[in-house]
């Protein structure tokens, strides 16, 4: 049964439009509304159900976007022999962070590292939208035209769905995903293309570095973007530090995740079920498991001294 078309009372804010398109949300959402972008299909044939997303559908779409983005992020940290490493032009002949599933670790970690309240998250994304309104991405204002006659309608509905989604419990990893992809589109002109849904993952290794340069550090554009656009004073004051802590965490933990044991942890026996890939990559404990209770490296005492002089 067709639902009635909803009518918005105001035109879509250009900044918000850029969030939807530039962050990859539209591309990810299209994947869960398969009728939307099928080549050759007459847009006039679209009905409401084709272009409306439930919160659950949008959540699934955003999680897919996050996974795609984090694969690109982990390949950036520890390249391997995977398609994401090859896409960035820096790959190696042996597995890297993606082989260790550091992406999963990263997503879970980011969601736990800062307890951002929903209202904080919503203000943050609105703030980014407001900033983009003043400092446009290289996305044409008429981007919706690419979607055909119903383009505006698609974006409006997507925006409404995103609004509903943001009212709920939004994981930090989703917010970070949107940021990485937005910045990917902002710093790389014209925006790149490639096999992945996430714009970030289509970048070269050097281009990913430019994204990080825009986010990492105390004078990043993000700081300026947020300071004046978040209405709540306490949130406005806290946002730059929280976001910078998140970015710094992500860059650091992508490495930590690539070399720790989480993917092969045996919780029953508190050991590893097999030798972690990160240990293979680093030459650590070649005979593990099991992990021995000691080593055989004791060589005595420097100059035979067993104690220090007490004046």
């Amino acid at each position, binding site marked *: 049964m067709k639902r009635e078309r909803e009518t918005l009372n105001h035109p879509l804010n250009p900044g918000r439009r850029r969030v939807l398109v530039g962050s990859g949300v539209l591309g990810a959402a299209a994947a869960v509304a398969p009728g939307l972008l099928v080549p050759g299909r007459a847009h006039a044939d679209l009905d409401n159900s084709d272009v409306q997303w439930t919160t659950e559908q949008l959540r699934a779409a955003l999680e897919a976007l996050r996974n795609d983005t984090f694969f690109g992020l982990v390949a950036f940290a520890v390249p391997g022999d995977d398609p994401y490493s090859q896409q960035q032009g820096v790959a190696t002949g042996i597995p890297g962070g993606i082989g260790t599933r550091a992406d999963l670790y990263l997503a879970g970690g980011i969601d736990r590292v800062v307890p951002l309240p929903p209202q904080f998250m919503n203000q943050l994304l609105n703030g980014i939208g407001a900033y983009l309104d003043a400092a446009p991405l290289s996305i044409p204002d008429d981007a919706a035209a690419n979607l055909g006659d119903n383009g505006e309608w698609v974006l409006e509905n997507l925006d409404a769905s995103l609004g509903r989604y943001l009212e709920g419990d939004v994981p930090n990893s989703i917010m970070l995903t949107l940021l990485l992809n937005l910045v990917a589109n902002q710093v790389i002109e014209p925006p790149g293309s490639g096999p992945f849904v996430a714009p970030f993952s289509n970048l070269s290794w*050097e281009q990913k570095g430019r994204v990080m*340069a825009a986010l990492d*550090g105390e004078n990043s554009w993000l700081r300026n973007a947020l300071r004046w656009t978040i209405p709540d004073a306490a949130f406005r004051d806290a946002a730059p530090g929280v976001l910078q802590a998140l970015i*710094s965490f992500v860059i650091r933990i992508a*490495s930590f995740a690539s070399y*720790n044991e*989480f993917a092969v942890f045996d919780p029953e026996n508190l*050991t590893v079920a097999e030798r972690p890939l990160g240990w293979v990559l680093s030459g650590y404990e070649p005979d593990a498991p099991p992990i*021995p209770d000691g080593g055989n490296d004791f060589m005595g005492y420097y100059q035979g001294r067993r104690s220090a*002089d007490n004046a």
Partner: protein
Amino acid sequence: MRDVIIIGAGGGGPVVAKELAERGLDVLVLEAGARHANPEQEWSYLENHMNSTLTGKFRVGPSDPTRPGWFRELTKPGSISQVAGVGGTTLHYYGNSPRAMPGVFAGYRGADRNLYDTRFRFPFTYDEMRPYYEWTEATLPVQTAAMGKKEKAFFDSAEAAGLSPLTGKDVTRAGFRPQENAILQPGGNAGKTRDSSQLRYPDATGCTFCGHCFQGCQIPKGAPRNLKARRSTDNSYIPMALTADLYKPGGKAVTLLSDAYVTRIISDRPRFSLGRVARGVEWRDTNTGETHSEEARVVIMAGGCIENPRLWHNSELPDFNGWVGRGLTDHALDWVVGQFPHDVGGTEGAASSSRADFPGYGSIENTANMPAIHANNLSDSNTGIRSLYDNGQANTGSWDGKSGRVYGTELKDMMSDVNRLMAVLILTDDDVEYQNRVDVSQAFTDEHGPVARVRMEKRNRSRRTVRNRNYLTNRAAEILRAGGASKIIRMDWNPVLLHMQSSMRMGDSARNSVLDENCEARAVEGLYIADHSALPNAIGGPNPTLTSQALATRTAEKIFQKHFGGDSWVSRESPVSSINDAVTRAVIQRGI
């Protein structure tokens, strides 16, 4: 009413607890985190399982790992490496127990006296402190560290760089030395085999060279708790505090409650006084959510440099001079890594058994690390990703290229054999600075009230702090180069808040200190602080735990004298070692 309530069972609280328990006082210890009563059954040797700041056993958070950790707001990029739980951050410390530089104490007359943080010295002399060092060193006990491959490589490198060995506990000139560690050194089969069947107590005693200090010390397997190798307080002072009635005539065992988060210090304001008098505490059971309160004649804060200011503010205690939470020092930690063409034992043995000291500048120490921590540490920097961007901050020096995060194929290459890495931790003698502080967040609260907000202005440190950090990183790189490193990288870390001191500092001036010369709060009678936050400065750069513990011993004496009419004991008695047979029997008898 209790005699004494102690808030926090980390590096400092258990020291006061044990000392006052030996005097027969009625002591209640409240710890917000978990009690790790059975390490051999609960712990592993694994980095993420134990040390994830989000879900690990050693994090700041409730006992239940499925519940979120306790958030602290950082205003700038950085990380906090603390642990909640019985043992606190000593659960994953390296046991390094050097004394403070004598130059940071009142009355110091050495030729280098102007090199130190001269505005914020200890309010008493090094000579007064020495007996408390000796008492604490005997109690833990502190021993000279054994040598393995990585120590030999470091000593050879330091010597090649022109340094000479130091042989004393009191450091008055630059040089290198084995660590003075709160670790029982290897005995029996320890350090000689990787066959776990030969490494059970008593076939092996002390450090087995397992290489997992950071994951907590549970070895030798089968040893009584007080005979585990590393002397974190859960292995030393806590077992003593819980058995003081058994091994010490006149002693009284403390009551220890874990999962008890103190949310308020109860105080009265006497008539005609602006100050307050401590009366007790309120706490919340982190499992049930129930709240409790109890009164005491003396209250001691020992929750650390971050939680103490938070609790102070959330208790609405007075802050007359504005120094509550101010003056936080962190040793401006940094990391210099050398990649060698051969194995230098980068993951083996006790985590840190060798160091070099540079009075007036700070210290450096060689460390062993498992792969993920190595990778983590190589990816942290305030100066961008090497070869990609530098945030306008990159440093050059005796290392190769610019400082910065190691990423991509360079990271993978550096990590290709962790045993070829020699990692040097930089411990800067940093200044007490008013700007660096802990207060409470305006945006975030949790079930215990507004959370702590930490502000460490890494890019705006004092000229002396920056000078010292650069000096030490250059010296570290020179040592690595002299030892034959083929590639040397300086990270220029973001603040890594692992060594935190002086956020509730003691001092000789009421204008710039929270505590008086006896570590009693100037604004709240009967309220004391006994952890790193009470330190008046960064102690010159050495690792702070021993100094905090010695100071806490002194504070225990002051409390016993002022509030309970007792006498001092450190100058008149001999300490009982935590590995004394009587303590071991008591620990076994009580089933600890």
